[in-house]
């Protein structure tokens, strides 16, 4: 009938085919990336060995933004075309994105300690990422706050889009705020130019993270589909019980 009722079998077949590749790519790219990052790339002349944190931190920060964009795209698809898989994809994307955001914050903090001497600096970028993390949390909280999961998905989809519109405004205002308050001595992360020996592991790690995202996303979506089936079975049981009691009620009514 309508795709709302469509069996997700086609998706599951596709997922079965993609998933091993995504997993394999994650391992291969991640392994190679880590080798280059930890052993073959040079230490920074200023930052020393701590620069190696960058190979986790920067791809995580990229993924934080990438996942939020993917989340917003999935939510827009869900709201406009009402495709049920888009709802599932959005729901599955959010925790992954939140984890990458948290990873970016944690590694940024670890990097900050030797560089700035404190665990946390209200640097414009870190602050924006922190707010992005809050946006993820708001999305996930709203998504899970309803007894009817469909309501949660629709409501949180609207929130995700509102948040997406807000991301550049927040970024702009935090930059503004930062220039007003921050002393200019902060060392910019990454530095002006990246040497190829550092770019290789960075890109490898970035692609490994993308592959990991696809892998986990498919797994989570599979989980969501199973949860949906279980819910449907439960509802059917309730309905069956209701129908038998109604029949019994009708029978006694006739007897009178």
């Amino acid at each position: 009938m309508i795709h709302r009722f469509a069996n997700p079998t086609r998706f599951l077949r596709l997922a079965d085919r993609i998933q091993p590749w995504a997993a394999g790519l994650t391992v291969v790219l991640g392994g190679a990336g880590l080798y280059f990052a930890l052993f073959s790339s040079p230490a920074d002349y200023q930052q020393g060995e701590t620069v190696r944190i960058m190979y986790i931190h920067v791809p995580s920060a990229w993924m934080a933004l990438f996942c939020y964009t993917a989340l917003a795209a999935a939510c827009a698809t869900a709201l406009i075309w009402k495709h049920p898989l888009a709802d599932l994809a959005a729901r599955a994307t959010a925790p992954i994105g939140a984890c990458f955001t948290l990873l970016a914050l944690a590694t940024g903090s670890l990097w900050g300690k030797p560089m700035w001497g404190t665990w946390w600096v209200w640097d414009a970028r870190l602050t924006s990422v922190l707010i992005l993390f809050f946006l993820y949390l708001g999305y996930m909280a709203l998504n899970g706050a309803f007894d009817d999961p469909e309501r949660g998905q629709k409501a949180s989809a609207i929130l995700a889009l509102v948040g997406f519109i807000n991301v550049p405004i927040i970024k702009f205002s935090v930059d503004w705020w930062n220039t007003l308050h921050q002393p200019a001595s902060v060392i910019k992360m990454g530095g002006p130019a990246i040497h190829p020996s550092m770019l290789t592991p960075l890109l490898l790690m970035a692609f490994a993270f993308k592959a990991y995202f696809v892998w986990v996303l498919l797994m989570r979506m599979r989980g969501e589909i199973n949860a949906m089936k279980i819910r449907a079975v439960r509802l059917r049981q309730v309905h069956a019980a209701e129908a038998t009691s109604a029949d019994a009620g009708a029978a006694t009514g006739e007897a009178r």
Partner: protein
Amino acid sequence: MTNFVTILRRDLRLSFRQGMDSLMVVMFFVIAVVLFPFGVGPEPNILARIAAGVIWVAALLASMLSLERLFQTDYEDGSLEILVLQPVSLEVVVAAKVTAHWLTTGLPLIAAAPLLAVLLNMDAGGFAILILALALGTPSLSLIGAIGAALILGARRGGVLLSLMVLPLYIPVLIFGVSAVDAALGGFAARPHLLILSGLLLATVALCPWVGAAALRQAMRS
């Protein structure tokens, strides 16, 4: 437009008859600000330095707390369902309800702000800009919060949820609201900050009723 006025008058009437609501918001605002000297010490210089930020943050929280009920009571007693089914565009309904909310909570906050600024030892030169910034900023807060208030309808733990969703979205208003006052106190031009606040207000006026109406529609679907 007549529908806008009809709904606005009804919401104002409801709010005045219930009475306590807007008074409580102002009381919260005052108490939240008064807590700060206890937290950071009564040093006049420190208080003067943080006055604008403290007042803004407290105003933000007060506005948000009162927003939880914006659609909730109408949702619970069935009024919202009927309101959605009137031959009135839902955007107008949202705009009217937000206006009523701002008149009953935003305005009292603005009126109370100079008093709190005195308590926090703020320089008198910043008062006018503080009031102006609040006048431009608090309607944006009400409008953004209205989206959140519409989204939490029927959710468990609506109030906490609302703060989690809405507070990150309030950050731009907070930043420019405070920086306008700080600029005025520091002898710089507050105009650019106020202009950006006006820009934010225009954007929220244009977008929020529309998004809020979409949120209400989907809340009615279940």
